[in-house]
């Protein structure tokens, strides 16, 4: 395995790419008793049109299928429920699906060998029957309904519908209820066989384990798995401008909400490296809209907001900067955000201070095995590799470069969604 030191973090990372394309990333800790494992595929909810293995035709599958598949992986032909298996050593297990990936995790302090082996085995043995697929529908529909009852969640979905014209991020990760009802075991196998292949997957382990023992568990299980030609996924051409400038809906709430999404096409920007671009855009967000910004102080003093949350979304050729906020005066908040974007002020002191904060947070993350795995997981999904020199990259960030970048962005390309109070008095 290849050893790399994470600079400035007192941590070593071991990586290996098997012949079949599977990437393995280990971060052994000497002073911890616990471990955290994720086994992931670069396949998430946004893949709904592709050419399955051995097929020449593009097929469409129901929305929400990646998430459905994640649920059904817990079904095993021999009847051993993965939750029960992990429970025998008091080990926790779970799985999650995002727009771009699906992961299966387990975390505990005992039986590393057996648990790691089992995790790999069960993710490699799908068992879908008409009956067990049908049974899952009730569970998943309750999950979808649970999310539908959270106003913030609905607002976020509405914002994506406004920002994106064609990109599948418009559709909820869980899919629509009617699509979920239509899913069959054949659909599931089609997706499983196409995307749960070694060259589309990776494993990350951090914590208390023996890396040599771990790599042999991986190889024993997966050495016979062949590299497979990855299916062609229907590429969607997303338009530069937002789909809808303004939208609104109502809900039975007492404090209204605003969602704002600035769509930034990245192909014309001077920073070409994805990670570098994300660092500079995050810096912009922190300086202008972050907790220590003058903007936030102004809003606080005006009692304009109670929640304020920012996020940077990454899709191919675009970034989307999202703001979600609760406010009793949506229009005033919109005015303030627009004003801020027209009059962007950056200063070197803040720039340097935010760098210090980020570096401190990188150190903090390494104190915790699940946060460490989470950090690397994000890197693997967003940048297709582990970023081993992030602290150094942050240190080297250049104030002038930030200001140049900001002159290249069209700050008028945004969507606004208002969530109004129903029957406002």
């Amino acid at each position, binding site marked *: 395995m290849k050893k790399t030191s994470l600079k400035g973090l*007192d941590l070593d990372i071991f990586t290996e790419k098997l012949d079949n394309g599977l990437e393995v990333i280990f971060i052994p800790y000497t*002073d*911890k*008793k*616990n471990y955290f494992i994720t086994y992931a595929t670069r396949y998430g909810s946004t893949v709904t049109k592709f050419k399955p293995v051995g097929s020449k035709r593009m097929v469409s599958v129901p929305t929400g299928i990646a998430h459905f598949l994640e649920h059904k992986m817990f079904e095993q032909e021999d009847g051993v*429920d993965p*939750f*029960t298996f992990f*429970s*025998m*050593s*008091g*080990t*926790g297990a779970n799985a999650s699906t995002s727009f771009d990936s699906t992961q299966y995790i387990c975390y505990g*302090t*005992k039986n590393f060998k057996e648990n790691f082996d089992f995790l790999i085995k069960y993710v490699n043995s799908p068992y879908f029957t008409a009956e067990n697929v049908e*049974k899952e*529908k*009730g*569970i*998943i529909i*309750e*999950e979808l*309904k*649970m999310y*539908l*009852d*959270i*106003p*913030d969640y*609905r607002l976020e979905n509405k914002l994506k519908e406004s920002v994106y014209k064609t990109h599948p991020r418009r559709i909820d990760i869980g899919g629509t209820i009617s699509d979920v009802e239509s899913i069959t075991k054949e659909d599931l196998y089609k997706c499983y066989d196409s995307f749960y292949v070694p060259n589309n997957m990776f494993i990350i382990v951090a914590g208390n384990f023996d890396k040599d023992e771990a790599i042999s568990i991986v190889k024993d299980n997966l050495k016979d798995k062949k590299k497979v030609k990855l299916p062609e996924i229907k590429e969607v051409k997303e338009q530069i401008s937002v789909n809808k400038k303004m939208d609104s*809906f*109502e809900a*039975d*709430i*007492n*404090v209204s909400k605003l969602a704002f999404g600035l769509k930034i096409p990245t192909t014309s920007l001077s920073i070409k490296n994805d990670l570098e671009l994300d660092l500079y855009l995050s810096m912009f967000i922190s300086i202008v809209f972050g*907790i*220590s*910004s*003058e903007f*936030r*102080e102004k809003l*606080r*003093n005006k*009692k304009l907001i*109670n929640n304020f949350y920012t996020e940077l979304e990454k899709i191919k050729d675009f970034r989307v900067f999202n703001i979600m906020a*609760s406010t*009793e005066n949506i229009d005033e908040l919109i005015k303030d955000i627009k004003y801020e974007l027209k009059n962007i002020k950056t200063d070197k002191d803040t720039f340097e*201070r935010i760098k*210090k*904060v980020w570096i*401190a*947070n990188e*150190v*903090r993350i*390494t*104190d*915790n*095995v699940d946060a460490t795995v989470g950090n690397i997981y994000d890197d693997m999904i967003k940048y297709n590799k582990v970023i081993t020199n992030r602290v150094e990259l942050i240190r080297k960030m250049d104030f002038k470069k930030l200001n140049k970048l900001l002159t290249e962005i069209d700050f008028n390309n945004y969507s606004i969604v208002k969530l109004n109070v129903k029957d406002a008095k």
Partner: protein
Amino acid sequence: MKYITKNLRTCKLHIIKTKKFKTITVRINFRSPIVKNEITMRNILAEMFTQSSKNYKTKRDLTIKAQDLYSVGVNTSTNRLGNYTNLNFFLNVLNDKYTEKDNFIEAFNFFTDIIFNPDVEDNKFNKERLDIVKDLCRKTLLSIKEDPASYSVLRMYESIDSNSPISYRMVGYLNDLDKINESNLYDYYLKVLNNDLVDIFVIGDVKEAEIIKLVKDKIKFKTLKKERVPYILKEVKPRTRLLKVTESIVNNQSNLVIGCRINNISEYERNYVLTLFNVIFGGSPDSKLFKEVREKNSLCYTIRSVPNKFDNLLVIRAGIDKENYNKTVTLIDKILTSMKKGKFTDSDINIAKEYYKTALDDILEDENRIIDDYFMSEIISTDNIDEKRKNINKVTKSEIVKVAKKIKMDTIYLLEGDINEKN
């Protein structure tokens, strides 16, 4: 890991020396018997410290200072444990090894200055800041139904016993909010300083003598305090006829919350047997509730039971379709009854014990959980981790059955999702 306690007469200092973490964490716990109409005041007070101090007049100034100290985390929180309410102050700072010399000392001084040198003039908190905090609190209180899961639990607590601290809304009350002003908040602040019991926890790679000196220099109280009431609530017999409460909300899903009373339970049962009972019954994805209600009958996505040791309660929660209400309640009741009849295996018990032991191991990987553990042994004399590891192995099946029999359903609350028009 080395644990040192030092009684400083007006407060108690706990130092946990360990090289395991790259940060140092400090927690200062203030606690006193809970008073319903002070809950909102206490929340407002907790929030005030995060908005300004005498030396840092705005949240922005405070944040910039914190960021300059390599992003120190300073937070406050309030909660209830049985008959008591806590007001906690948290500090988390990187060890000087990762920053620069004396960064920890400066962070500690910044932290204690926020607590003991608040934004007060003429015995009054800053009105402008208070208005901001009150407004934030008001909006939070107006938004509580946005999280139907927590809201339904809160309504179950109010339904089961409207006089007991169980029913107190820890988010506070709009009526009480209106009564808070700059002066009475300052009076309350003094009352907290003078009457609350105080424990200070410091964990990390620290020097004992340095910490003792820092604490003695920066943290001073005038009065000696004593515990006045027990932490654990008095037991209450379950009602003879189940109470069923249904309220409706414009939602897709219905939230079912069942409150069970626990009676005649010993300390040993509370700390060990009840925990194992719960893991088997509904505390994990391998539990009876999860397997029967969710996996076999597809009635829900979420189902979980949580024991509330301080209140002698067991709470069961599930997100269901309203059509399935009777079916779900009947099934849960059947599973509880089968636990009482001992319909679970030795393997179920062993699995639950393993869960418990992993949870013990996990405590040692997290500064805050380590502090929580020492805090529990401080207030309710729980055993230390090694003793817990030994004792859990002793629990037998008949003991779990015995505890199961002490659990009785009392109140069934349904927040019925009623969606007529879709958005």
